[in-house]
């Protein structure tokens, strides 16, 4: 049941009515309904792991209460470790077990030993990378006294499995989200219309931009050995926009759905394609993941390595981003992707500009020439590394790069439009439309949040109608799953 499907629309429509008309009087009724909706949503996607999800929630709920209650530091530590072992162990088993086994086999094979350990037929619980990070941050925060352990199990179970965000985030922190579950939600017209607007923009990015781009980039990545350099560059360029439109589109829908039922879900994107250096890119890309990593990985590491000066910072950031890469899945491509992103920070650390906020000219129509160069330079770095992210194996990525630099760029690519736009120029206009609207709206949480506020309502409605029309007209008819669903 993906967000842009009829099934989900029906599910959410019924949920919305029950939530605001039947359950509105009473906080516990509201929370129980959200929980029931979340479990139905999760079971719909894959019922086999519902028990696992409930078990993980129950364990961490009790750990939180007892970590807070005990005065015995050893017992406290033990409880914390149980939570961490469950979280990290769960991820290691479900996501990485087979990867470890095949990597072991490869290593031994290369040493001429044939041990041939068997891989297991493991199915990954949906959303495990996302909800595990929520439970880990929760017990760490309780342990450090940054948050009070909640004694209401419905609240905690809802925090772990909140249906708009369970499958692919954003990864809410307990500090921000649990207090929202403890207050009764009251219907707010502005918040709801804001949510609808954000969903609309998310749908456009996902269905019109990302799904059409997929029809161009998939064949390029599949046939990269035969294509000229111009096609490969185009493939990398389009894939960068595709993954942005796909994941930020998904995130907008998740956040918008949250708003519709009275929640403020944590933001996930802040126009990363306009970032002026790689550090800024990661402050704007998948924010809920990077802020999690900054708090629970980078900061403790940089404190531990503090006597090493800049070398310590470099070590901390490279480890941090390698973990960021591995988080995406069990493939050496992700490891390398993260590691190289970490390496891109090295010049910034040496120059001392990693945390310097770039001064941007607010509300200007066009960037200055220097800003433009910075944006383009950052985009190119990001684009080249997304090739590794997209490739099936490191060797594929390597050959893709080799193709870009060794083959001729002729014939100049005519990308074959299997997109629903038919003509290439129509699709290019749609891409430009995206980029212009995003640039214009870059001071907001999402591009069309405050677009056209100074015009009469009717103008805005015509604009929204235009977007709906574009979705109806140009979205491919087959359902394309979200890229981040597999992480």
């Amino acid at each position, binding site marked *: 049941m993906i967000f842009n499907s009829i099934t989900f629309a029906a599910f959410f429509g019924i949920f919305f009515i029950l939530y605001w008309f039947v359950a509105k009087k009473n906080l516990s009724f509201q929370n129980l309904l959200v929980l029931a909706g979340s479990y139905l949503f999760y079971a719909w996607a894959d019922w086999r792991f519902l028990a696992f999800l409930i078990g993980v929630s129950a364990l961490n709920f009790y750990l939180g209460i007892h970590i807070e209650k005990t005065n015995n530091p050893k017992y406290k530590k033990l409880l914390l470790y149980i939570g961490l072992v469950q979280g990290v162990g769960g991820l290691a088993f479900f996501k990485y077990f087979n990867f470890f086994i095949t990597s072991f086999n490869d290593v031994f094979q290369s040493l001429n030993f044939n041990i041939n350990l068997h891989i297991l037929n493991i199915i990954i619980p949906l959303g495990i990378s996302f909800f595990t990070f929520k439970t880990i941050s929760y017990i760490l925060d309780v342990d*450090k006294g940054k948050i009070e352990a909640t004694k209401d199990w419905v609240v905690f179970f809802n925090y772990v499995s909140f249906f708009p965000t369970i499958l692919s985030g954003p990864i809410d922190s307990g500090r921000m989200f649990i207090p929202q579950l403890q207050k009764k939600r009251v219907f707010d017209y502005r918040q709801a219309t804001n949510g609808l607007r954000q969903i609309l923009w998310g749908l456009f990015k996902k269905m019109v931009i990302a799904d059409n781009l997929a029809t161009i980039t998939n064949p390029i990545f599949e046939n990269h050995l035969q294509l000229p350099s111009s096609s490969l560059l185009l493939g990398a360029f389009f894939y960068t926009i595709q993954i942005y439109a796909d994941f930020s589109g998904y995130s907008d829908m998740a956040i918008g759905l949250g708003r519709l039922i009275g929640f403020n879900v944590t933001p996930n994107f802040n126009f990363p394609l306009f970032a002026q250096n790689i550090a800024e890119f990661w402050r704007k890309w998948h924010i809920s993941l990077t802020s999690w990593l*900054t708090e629970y990985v980078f900061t*403790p590491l940089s*404190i531990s390595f*503090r*006597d090493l000066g800049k070398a310590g*910072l470099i070590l901390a950031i490279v480890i941090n981003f390698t973990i960021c890469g591995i988080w995406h899945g069990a493939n050496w491509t992700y490891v390398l992707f993260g590691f190289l992103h970490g390496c891109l920070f090295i010049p910034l650390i040496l120059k001392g500009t*990693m945390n310097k906020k770039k001064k941007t000219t607010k509300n200007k129509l066009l960037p200055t020439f220097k800003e433009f160069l910075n944006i383009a330079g950052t985009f190119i770095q990001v684009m080249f590394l997304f090739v590794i992210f997209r490739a099936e194996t490191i060797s594929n990525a390597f050959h893709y790069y080799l193709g870009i630099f060794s083959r001729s760029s002729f014939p100049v690519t005519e990308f074959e439009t299997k997109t629903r736009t038919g003509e290439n120029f129509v699709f290019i206009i749609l891409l430009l439309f995206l980029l212009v609207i995003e640039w214009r709206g870059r001071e907001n949480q999402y591009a069309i949040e405050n677009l056209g506020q100074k015009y009469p309502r009717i103008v805005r409605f015509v604009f929204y109608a235009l977007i709906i029309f574009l979705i109806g007209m140009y979205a491919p008819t087959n359902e394309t799953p979200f890229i981040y669903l597999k992480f």
Partner: protein
Amino acid sequence: MERHDKLKQINDIFIDILDNEDILIEENTTAKDIDEWDSLTHIQLVVAIEKKFKIRFTSREIQSWKNVGEMIDCIETKFA
């Protein structure tokens, strides 16, 4: 050393590390109050304070302070 002397010495460290002459910290100052004070300069500040007072904080202590006052409390425990 009196508490307010410590505060003054720490203020000098802040001015030096954050490269801003106008900084005037108080017990209830937090990172939000000073633009240049972010996660990276925080570590530099910690290292400088450790050197100045010839003490060593644990990771846990460093991550637990909510404002300058709590940091000074922590420094005082090292001399107690």
